[in-house]
């Protein structure tokens, strides 16, 4: 009987959902009528981080805040704003973290230098290797 009551109570329980009841922002899920503008917006939205669900881009996220960010991106692009200006506007407010497209800065240069360094290192090692095998002659 107790278990039955428990089961009934669980059936009746309504979860507390921390989610708003407002419909999504007008341009959260609606594309811009101009395909060229929509393409620009889409490219930008794919490289902006959702702040609620931090491993997703705002283009991927169904969080209401991501929807509001998409609305903002689309309406600004429709108003003729440059995508990079919008990215900069967000970086001013949330720091570099909000952008998935790293820029060259004192703190990020190793990110860009590392591949070049590795390539140079590989070239050096290969050169040594080739020289060595030509020196030992018959085995190459």
């Amino acid at each position: 009987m107790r278990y039955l009551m428990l089961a009934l109570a669980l059936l009746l329980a309504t979860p507390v959902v921390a989610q708003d009841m407002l419909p999504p922002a007008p341009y959260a899920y609606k594309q811009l009528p101009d395909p060229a503008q929509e393409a620009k917006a889409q490219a930008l939205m794919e490289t902006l981080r959702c702040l609620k669900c931090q491993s997703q881009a705002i283009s991927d996220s169904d969080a209401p805040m991501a929807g509001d960010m998409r609305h903002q991106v689309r309406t600004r692009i429709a108003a003729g704003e440059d995508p990079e200006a919008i990215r900069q506007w967000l970086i001013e407010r949330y720091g570099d973290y909000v952008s998935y497209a790293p820029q060259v800065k004192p703190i990020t240069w190793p990110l860009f230098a590392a591949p070049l360094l590795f390539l140079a290192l590989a070239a050096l090692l290969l050169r040594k290797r080739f020289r060595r095998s030509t020196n030992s002659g018959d085995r190459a």
Partner: protein
Amino acid sequence: MSDPRDPAPKNPGTKKPGLAMWLPLGLFAAFFVLVIWGLVRPANREVESAFIGKPLPAFDLPPASDDRPGLNTTVFSGKPRLLNVFASWCVPCAVESPQLAALAQQGVEIDGVAIRDRKDDVARFLAQNGNPFARIGKDDLSKVQLAIGSSGVPETFVIDGKGVIRYQHIGDIRPEDVPLILRKLAEAGS
């Protein structure tokens, strides 16, 4: 590099494996420690506003409640105020309401921004949790939230008498946070 089936080393000058032999194990150990560290002490995932120290961007929000006016930037002149970003659908926002009430009782002026909220829900929320707000703006598209670099609810900003954002508190205000907020308000007022 050297073929184990090859009895004669092709390069007699090659050093014997010494420390290099331990390198993979060492790398593995370092990686292991890194992973354990990440598990034991997860990184802080709060996104701080980069807008602290900058003036509040201009905005003008309609009222979110029938008995409080809406909120616009002109209010933030004179003495420091708190700007509380909240929502009726946000559970920690209800948790912090006693602390907001205590701050209001000490004479702190608090303005609210209700994120993606309906008037009925705001009214119910205020009836349940008390209303510490002087003004409440309705931000249906999270515009003000995005404009000040807030990434969730609740968040509380200290705004000085010139309308400059001086401090950001992320998450609900717990009783132990109240003194810090009062201190930040005093600093903003000096």
